[in-house]
Structures are given as C-alpha cells and as structure tokens.
C-alpha cells in the first residue's frame, strides 16, 4: 500500500486519483440517496416544523466551509514551508469549492431565517463572520486568477490564507462570544448532541455525503490543476522552441508542477 509521502508526488497522485475517484463518487452518491431519504422521512421539528429539513443542507455546508478553509491553511503551510507543489495544487483547488459551500450555507441559512426569524438576513456575529469567510474565499480565488506567475500567486495566496485563518475561530465561537440570534452549538458539545436522534441521524448521514462529495471534487480539481500546469509547461516549451531567443525562465517557474 502506498504511503502518504509516496503519494505526495504529482505523477503518483494522478494514478491514485484515477483509482479512488469512481469509488468516492459512488460512495457519496449512495450516502446522498440514504441521506435524502432520511431527510424527507424524518418527522418535522416541534418548533421549526418542515423547515428543519433545510438544516440537513445548511449544517453540512457550514461544517464543510470551515473544514475546507482549515485544509487550505494546512496546505498553505505545506506550500510555504516545504514548497511542495501538491500542497500548492491542493490549496488552489480547494478555494472555489470552499467558496461554493460557504455560499450554499448562507443561501440555505437565509431560506431558513425568513420563515423562522422573519428576516432573510441579520447582522448577527455568526452570519457576518461567515459572510467574511465567503469574501476571503473569493479574494483567494481572485489572487490565483489575477497573478500570471503561479509561483508568486501561490506565495501570496498562501500568506492570505494563513492571515484569513484568524476568522475560523471567530466563526466557530461567535455564538459563544457574543449574544447572537443564531443558535449555539447543538451537535459537538461537551454533554453530547442536544438534538433528537430522529433529526441527528439524517444530519450526520448528509454531513458524511457532503464530505465524501467534497473529497471527490477536491481530488478531481487537483487532478485538473496538475494537468493545467503540464499544459502550461508544454505551451511554454513550444513557444521557446518556436522563438529560441525568448527567455522562458520566469514563466516556467510557475509551471513547475
């Protein structure tokens, strides 16, 4: 069985990704089928009524929004400290995915908030810090797209990711540090989950489905990024062969993976 360090090589990663992706996709699909069935057969909540079913999308998206950013931060450390090309690839691939799940978290939260709170949006500490998280994700995606030299873009994106990590504990503990309209933690508490098992089970199955989906999307996006870098390198080499007087060194640095 290949070790993690041996997989930390773009060529070997591509081979492993080809094998793992169909299984991850199938497992995620199966979990979604089970999770959706449980979500719509679970009884309505005594206070929230039918809108509790929105929680089966909102909570997993919120968990993923935080988890993906944490993964991006770990990758940023790998890219900055060890200069590992796969860490950089992972960081770049995760940013739009994290942004998409954060957006989904905000949209589903808003769709739950209107019937339950009577407002689409309130400037509550939890909601505002998640909005800031979305803006950070968008900023990091913009850095990757705005800077031509991918090596420089990687360094700036890694630093921005690590600076933005300060927002993660703010999102997580905002409901404890401030008086918020948003409810406090109800699953991961010292006294165990505060949710009835009939609601907790679909929530956990949907969370597993979302996590597996993210794993499949992340591997797929990383595979694409490795291919894009190979293509870029080929294009640079073709250009240098066509015009040998051109120096391609500054451009080639960005295509090293």
């Amino acid at each position, binding site marked *: 069985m290949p070790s993690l360090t041996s997989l930390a090589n773009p060529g070997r990663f591509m081979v492993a990704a080809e094998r793992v992706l169909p299984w991850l996709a199938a497992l995620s699909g199966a979990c979604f089928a089970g999770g959706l069935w449980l979500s719509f057969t679970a009884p309505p909540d005594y206070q929230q*009524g039918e809108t509790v079913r929105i929680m089966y999308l909102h909570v997993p998206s919120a968990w993923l929004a935080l988890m993906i950013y944490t993964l991006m931060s770990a990758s940023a450390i790998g890219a900055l400290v060890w200069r590992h090309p796969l860490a950089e690839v992972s960081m770049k691939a995760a940013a739009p995915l994290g942004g998409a799940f954060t957006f989904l978290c905000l949209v*589903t939260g808003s769709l739950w908030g209107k019937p339950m709170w009577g407002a689409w949006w309130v400037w509550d500490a939890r909601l505002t810090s998640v909005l800031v998280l979305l803006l950070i994700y968008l900023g990091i995606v913009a850095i990757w797209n705005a800077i031509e030299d991918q090596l420089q873009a990687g360094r700036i994106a890694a630093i921005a990711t690590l600076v933005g990590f300060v927002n993660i504990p703010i999102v997580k503990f905002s409901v404890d540090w401030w008086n918020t309209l948003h409810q406090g933690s109800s699953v991961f508490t010292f006294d165990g989950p505060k949710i009835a098992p009939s609601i907790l089970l679909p929530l956990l199955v949907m969370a597993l489905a979302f996590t597996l989906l993210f794993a499949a999307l992340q591997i797929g996006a990383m595979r694409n990024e490795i291919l894009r870098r190979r293509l870029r390198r080929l294009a640079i080499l073709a250009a240098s062969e066509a015009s040998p007087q051109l120096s391609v060194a500054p451009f080639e640095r960005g295509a090293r993976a």
Partner: protein
Amino acid sequence: MSFLNLPHIGFVIAAYAAALAVVALLIGTILWDHRSLRRALAAHEAKGERPPGPDAVSP
C-alpha cells in the same frame, strides 16, 4: 395534507434546489475542465510533445 400544502414547504424546496444547482455546477465545471484539458494535452502529445521531468508521464 399534501406535501405541497405543508407550511413553509416553498422555502424547503428552494433550499434543496439551490443545493442541487451548486453541486451540479461544481461537478459540471470540474468534468468540463477535465475534458478540455485532456483534449488540449492530447493535441500536444499528437505533435510528439511531452512534458519533461520525472512527473511527466500522462496517466
């Protein structure tokens, strides 16, 4: 009471539709990107160009 007459069901349907749209967009974008990258790499390889280096093997 039918499913569509349940209170606030419109908000529930809208949330699931939004989730479906976001997930479909993510999957579609990644698959489309993969196909176009593979096609572009195949065009280079057809011309006999291969990326140099130890990780250059196209799987």
